């Protein structure tokens, strides 16, 4: 077993895990953050997408030991203290980007990662950013629309000086 000090959603936690433990298991287990979903366990479906140092990764392929000292952001970390949803999350609610919801946390994180790097994406940019996130319910149309709506919301918030 090894001891790790992880920073997840801005909060520090100390966990003792098997040396090869996956970030996914640490998040869902000892850290009590079940929003990150396991859909396949081999990096194909993207349901476990989280951000590590600002980049989207599959938590099922990430050794927990590797994220020590790096910022980890999960879907729970996008929710504000009063339960305020982030712009991306609100856009998914309004834009119909949610059906069964199992892929949704991963989708939301991939869109969040995209918009952090590219605030004004084209539909093609969105599709490219989401190629690693499988959804079986929506046909993606309303997910892509939600992502573009999120980009608009974030730009407006920035112009308005609000919190994105």
């Amino acid at each position: 077993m090894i001891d790790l000090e992880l920073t997840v959603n801005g909060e520090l936690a100390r966990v003792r895990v098997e040396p090869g433990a996956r970030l996914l298991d640490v998040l869902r287990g000892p850290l009590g953050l079940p929003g990150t979903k396991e859909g396949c366990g081999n990096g194909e479906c993207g349901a476990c997408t989280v951000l590590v140092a600002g980049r989207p990764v599959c938590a099922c392929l990430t050794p927990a030991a590797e994220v020590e000292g790096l910022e980890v952001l999960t879907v729970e970390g996008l929710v504000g203290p009063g339960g305020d949803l982030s712009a991306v999350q609100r856009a998914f609610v309004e834009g119909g980007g949610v059906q069964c919801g199992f892929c949704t946390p991963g989708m939301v994180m991939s869109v969040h990662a995209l918009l952090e790097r590219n605030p004004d994406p084209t539909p093609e940019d969105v599709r490219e950013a989401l190629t690693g996130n499988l959804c079986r319910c929506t046909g993606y149309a309303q997910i892509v629309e939600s992502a573009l709506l999120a980009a608009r919301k974030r730009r407006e918030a920035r112009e308005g000086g609000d919190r994105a």
Partner: protein
Amino acid sequence: MRDTTWIGRDLPRPDAADKVAGRAAYIHDLSRPGMLWGKVKFSEHASARIVHIDTSRARRLPGVRAVITGDDTPEIRIGFLRDNVALKRGRVRQQRDEIAAVAAIDPDVAAEAIELIRVEYEPLPAVFDPEQALHPDAPLVHDRDASGRPVTSNLLPVSVRHVSGDLAAGERAARYVAEGEFSTPLIQQSCLGTAGCIAEFDLRGNLTLWAKTQIPFLAQRDFVKALEAMGLEGRNARVIVPALGGAFGTGLDTHCYEYIAMLLAHRTGRPVKMLYTREEEFAFLSPRQSARTRIVQGCDAEGRLTFRRIDVLQDNGAYTSWGATYPTVMLIPATSLYKVANVWFDARIVYTNNTYAQAMRGYGNPEVTWPIERTLDDLARQAGIDPLELRLRNVNEPGETTPMGLEVTTCGLRECFDFAREKLDWAKKRGQQRGARRGVGVAALVHVGGSGRIYRSDGGGVILKLDDFGNVNVSYGGVEMGQGLHAALTSAVAEALGVTPERVHVNPTDTATCPWDVGTHASRGAFIACNAAIRAAAKARTKLFALAAELFAPEVARNLEAHQRRNPGYEPPNFDVGAACAAGRFQLASGVVTLEGAPAEPWLRLELARLLRAGHFRGVAGQMIVEEAFYEPPSTLPDWSEGVGNMSACYAYGVQGFEVEVDDETGEVTILHAVSAHDVGRVLHPQALRGQVQGGLAQGIGYALYEEVRTHEGRVLNPSFTDYKIPTAHELAFPVDVHFVETDDPAGPFGAKGVGEPGLVPTAPALASAIEDAVGVRIADLPMTQEKIVRALREQRAPRGS
């Protein structure tokens, strides 16, 4: 169509906020105190005698709490024909047969224990091809039926036939005849959330099962029977449905793993959770049935259909689930897609040693729409009629009774074709773009739109429970699996009762609290739930207005006093509240009770919550408003031996069309544009509806172009998303023109029809027609992979014999 306040609006889905925040609790996220993890040992042979099972090493592994086999547990028979048992004894018939199971303190220990179980087999002859399985010398998959009677053939004793009109006369009347053999593959539903359950017993032997199911009440019935088999007669099985990570038909039957979890929970006295990995989901969950179809149909010189004959051979796999009832739905397109008078339909379903198959979206319909639509293109070519025009000459119309006896109350099929023709620029494009390797194609569908009766009761109930704060708690026994049922139900309750949607709360599905429902299949969820809700709301309104007849006048009198205190000198308008109350002229809208014709004075408005409290707190006369309504659709259970009966309250129609470009070097098909027009009766929730149509379309594209569970001697060769490809956002990068034709069906809630499945159904033949238009190749066996297209192009360039 009646005016509505909430129906037809994009209200926020009630489940969406939790889902985007990662708070929705799926079976994956649930845990119970003291819970153990179960795991199944599956067979390594498709057909073998089990000589010996050695579980001794697994039992000694620290952390293992139970190891069970068929030999040391009660036999639990399951399935449509009761031909399956939860844990096999002595014999395996498919690669995924459950031989043993363990319960352990965590999933890793459970997996390790499974690895330690050794099974000695004596391989037996097997049969994997449904044609060969019908051969007299073929090995019998089952030599006895569920009641122990010897059987002599692999043919299932499930017959669905239909003969109407005079086939010979129809053949004589035909000027052109098209025929062919077609097939559709085994495909995996590919829910993003894998299958799983938690089974827990209380100390009196009652079971609670958290299940990933679409049929909580039929499951309850099955689980109660299993409890009886376990010696627990008279005990209850309670089924609770958590958030579902998709279902698409996987939840239409109970599964061996659920019974095994029950056995393990009973053996250990602790809750037991089972959760499939993705690989297990691919290899050990029942996929959609594959089908081979022979079709002949003909038309006269004007292109009017004169006859249609369809013979289906279905590979059932080793055991029988609802997939064996596919032919009941196949009958719908076979007899009723386009007007055709003389019809023959016969389906044979055959046992093989392949994985036993189940249901998926469309349920037999796409399997038969595929050959019908493909051969219509052939007829159009022979007759020299434009293929869309040929379809219009045979288009279904309202008022029609089809050969199967389906009563077509409303039908917007013609409008759907008109939309597709215009949006695809059909006249300019069909047959005109071969040089650019581009083509357009269309195909249509008919499906049940008012539920589909395949069980004695096709109904469902809704309970509305109003509380002191004006909240309306809604209980319905069907399941939200992502399709937007709770969104539609919220809108319907708000509309029918007269409250705001924020006050409507749909409860989790639980057999202990919800009224019976046959299950969420056949596109029936919103149709049944909203119909039941409308009836329950009407009852609640009657009660509320009876209450108001007594309490409205005194309550608004208090309002008036308060109003006058605040506004000295206020003179109320001349309106006789008492008389209006006595006449029962109440209205309830957006949670406020008013009197019809009353002036718009604020004190004449009574908040629903106040009326409810006034009714509650009135001493010995106090009362609650809790209303239930059970809705049974006006349909009949067909006589399957004749294949006749009006199985649905109404029928959904639609047309999908595509423009594609085909890469003649790689075989890659690029979709440039899609059109999806559906007769939906009435739009309840536009966003959820679009989601259903676009989601079905996407699944149809996978079905058409690349999805297939590949097997070798019954073993799945591609049990991962690495090798079972479903469409990604990249594959759906084309504009989709979605159009809803509102035909306002009299049976529908607010006129709406069920539309969960149609998006998938005509996708493959529409794409095939477009591909043929683009490069001239015809592929009869789905999926139309790049590789098959390249092969067909090569054959086209080098005709046989050269």
